[in-house]
């Protein structure tokens, strides 16, 4: 729950979300990411730190720099998403199905 909030907060920023999507497409270095967004490399690094702290991405050293990947912790998040999705759907379904049937409208 705390993790969810941190992740949602981390994705609340538009630039950070763009960076996250770029990494989701394929692993990238800070320099590669910086070429794709209209902010400085140091700003990108700050965004990456937030994404890393909330376990959305992880860094792997490659030569002198890091390459950023989606954090494998993600599958648990995905399943959690579907769990919530179906749980909410069923709860909403119960409200509808338990209403008295409307025979004529």
């Amino acid at each position, binding site marked *: 729950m705390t993790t969810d909030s941190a992740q949602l907060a981390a994705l*609340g920023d538009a630039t950070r*979300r763009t960076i996250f999507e770029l990494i989701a497409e394929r692993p990238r270095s800070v320099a590669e990411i910086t070429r794709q967004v209209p902010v400085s490399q140091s700003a990108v690094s700050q965004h990456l730190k937030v994404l890393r702290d909330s376990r959305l991405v992880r860094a792997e050293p490659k030569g002198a720099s890091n390459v950023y990947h989606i954090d494998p912790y*993600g599958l648990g998040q995905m399943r959690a998403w579907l769990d919530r999705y179906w749980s909410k*759907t069923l*709860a*909403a379904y119960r409200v509808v*199905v*338990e209403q008295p049937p409307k025979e004529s409208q």
Partner: protein
Amino acid sequence: MNTHAEVTRVKQSIVVEAPIARAFKVFTEEFGSFKTPEHNMLGVEIAETVFEPRVGGHIYDRGTDGSECRWARVLAYEPPHRVLLSWDISPQWQIETDPEKTSEWEVRFTAETPTRTRVEIEHRKLERHGGGWEGVRDGVAGDQGWPLYLQRYADLFTHAA
């Protein structure tokens, strides 16, 4: 083997105070009335969600501008006990056109009493979504997957706020 299956599926169930026939009818005919709003791949608001009640049919969303999004195929339709559907949504939150790369969700209806029904949903074969899922699960190549779902989820809060 069990561990693998557990990792690649999600199960949910609920008991409702309704006869099985009504439980099935409401779930299928009125699906759009309780489907959660973040589930929308159209660029516009959903005007209606249609569940075509036959094998070979689809569930599709129709947008207020007339555009359509068919995101599930009806694989089994057995009133009032069971429906089986595909989940044609990729981990990148786009319509998946290759059926080999889609997961499936089964809804089972069981009468507990004449006026009470258990409804179970099992969303399985998640690994079939391919690179995204496998990569994320195994922590190896193909690092893409769930992020756009999460993003949609995040967007929901952003818009709601």
